[in-house]
């Protein structure tokens, strides 16, 4: 900027009228989409792990666990969708932690915008991630022989349920992102917490053969409840009780952690 005249013309440009809160939120959504374009590696991680899990479990353990790979896939696929969404819900918390560490959020917070719009952007990114990963797994599953009894309606309902689950679990990692100093701490914490929930559940095996103490845990594990509902939705035989049980965790998490997230965000130094 050696030319003072060009500076002066920049400085005296007119100010646009203030945008709406919705418009602010959409801009942050656009940022989330740009991230997919610029960090394709993250998208790769996002889909490779579940694809690997699907193939590995179906072909390595499937025959032993269910008699045939086809029968196992029918049991396992709704569960791997839940597992994927629960794991992937940590990305926005990691992204938040990265942004906070770089001082980027200082700029956002010093702008006259709706103060929650950056979170709306993170949510948009989350929803896109869940949709991309879930659709990919579904496509691979269908190629391998998985058949949702409830058809297209079942798939659409399943995607909706997955977004609700991801939304609820996302708050855990947004809180961690605000509290932890580095994104890798968020990831470590996430794995430590999620691993037992995912493995001590009915995603991979029928809990009937588990020791009674473990089975008691597995039966109330929110991941199991969500997996049961997911199977019901895709099979078209879900009961209201199953759906209600699956929604307890996401609704509780949102009710408790959303206000906590906002409080932590506002009082950050």
């Amino acid at each position: 900027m050696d030319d003072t005249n060009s500076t002066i013309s920049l400085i005296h440009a007119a100010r646009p009228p203030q945008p709406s809160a919705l418009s602010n939120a959409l801009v942050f959504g656009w940022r989330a989409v740009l991230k997919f374009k610029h960090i394709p590696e993250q998208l790769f991680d996002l889909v490779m792990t579940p694809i690997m899990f699907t193939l590995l479990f179906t072909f390595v353990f499937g025959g032993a666990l269910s008699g045939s790979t086809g029968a196992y896939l029918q049991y396992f696929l709704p569960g791997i969708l839940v597992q994927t969404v629960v794991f992937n819900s940590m990305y926005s918390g990691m992204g938040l932690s990265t942004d906070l560490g770089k001082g980027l959020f200082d700029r956002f917070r010093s702008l006259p915008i709706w103060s929650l719009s950056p979170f709306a952007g993170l949510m948009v990114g989350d929803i896109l991630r869940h949709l991309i990963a879930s659709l990919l797994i579904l496509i691979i599953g269908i190629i391998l022989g998985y058949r949702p009894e409830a058809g297209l309606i079942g798939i659409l309902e399943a995607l909706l349920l997955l977004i609700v689950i991801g939304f609820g679990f996302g708050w855990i990692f947004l809180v961690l992102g605000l509290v932890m100093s580095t994104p890798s701490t968020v990831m470590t914490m996430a794995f430590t917490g999620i691993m037992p929930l995912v493995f001590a559940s009915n995603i991979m095996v029928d809990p009937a053969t588990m020791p009674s103490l473990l089975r008691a845990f597995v039966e109330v594990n929110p991941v199991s409840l969500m997996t049961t509902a997911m199977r019901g939705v895709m099979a078209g035989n879900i009961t209201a009780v199953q759906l209600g049980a699956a929604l307890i965790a996401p609704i509780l998490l949102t009710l408790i952690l959303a206000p906590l997230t906002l409080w932590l965000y506002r009082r950050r130094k």
Partner: protein
Amino acid sequence: MPDTAVPPAGASILAIEARGLAKHFGDVRAVDGIDLDVPRGMIFGILGPNGAGKTTLLRMLATLLPPDAGSAKVLGFDLKESPHEVRGSIAMTGQFASLDEDLTGRENLILLARLWGFRGQNAKKRADDLLTAFDLADAASKQVKDYSGGMRRRLDIAASLVVTPGVLFLDEPTTGLDPMARKSVWRMIRSLSEAGVTILLTTQYLEEADQLAARIAVIDHGRKIAEGTSRELKAATGSGFLHLTLVDAARVEDAELMLEEITGNKPQRSSEGAALSLMVDTPQNANRALAALIAANIELADFSMGAPSLDEVFFALTGQITEPKNAEGDV
């Protein structure tokens, strides 16, 4: 929503008016009661060492941190009562680049332009105008993580000008830059000021404050220990300094004693040992001091007489901070 760049009617000619601002972190008094009056259109420097409270002060003024005590108005808007209006009137370039590293330079600016309310093509045009003005047009479609330190800093300042702020906060704008990049940021700051933007900058470089700021507040341990123009600060420390380099470093203590006896002031010894600088009230005193050294056979490799550097001013001021009567008063 009113145009927040326009201050309320009857607003004073001060861009920033702070009274008794304080912020504690646990037992640490990061900012311990600071008053600040920054006139509109001025480049105002806040000079202090690391940990003096500069960044905390700036973050409070930029509404990022609520003060524990005191109050402040930015362009007439009260920090506590009208934070949204304050945010509409300011821009802040933090010490760490507040940019999205994964996005390109152009995308960063378009993002901010849209957040400020530019739509569609207007947002793109504003971004491109800024990139051109800051000499970044060639790097527009590179991701920010591939930018050099100087480019990053230029983009960061450009990002603060997406709409013209009434007050621009710059937190250590040249820390970590090489001398060339530093000069280019200085030019940029000067031309913004010429265009009418009020700038409050913090720095730990005395030269930077001296070069850019019309007024300087020196802060240390969260308190303002002096304020004035660069000239006033220098004058407060004495009319001039005599800088001496001895041929024989072994005689430095003899020289020190002799100089203190003649002028009544204690010389400062450089870390290398053979150089001394001495505050002298008059040129006559300087002459007497030199004559005495020569008479005592203390040979000089070099000597010069000059106004005190801000460095010397700073050490003179912070050296006195333990004495309460000097800790509070403005110079």
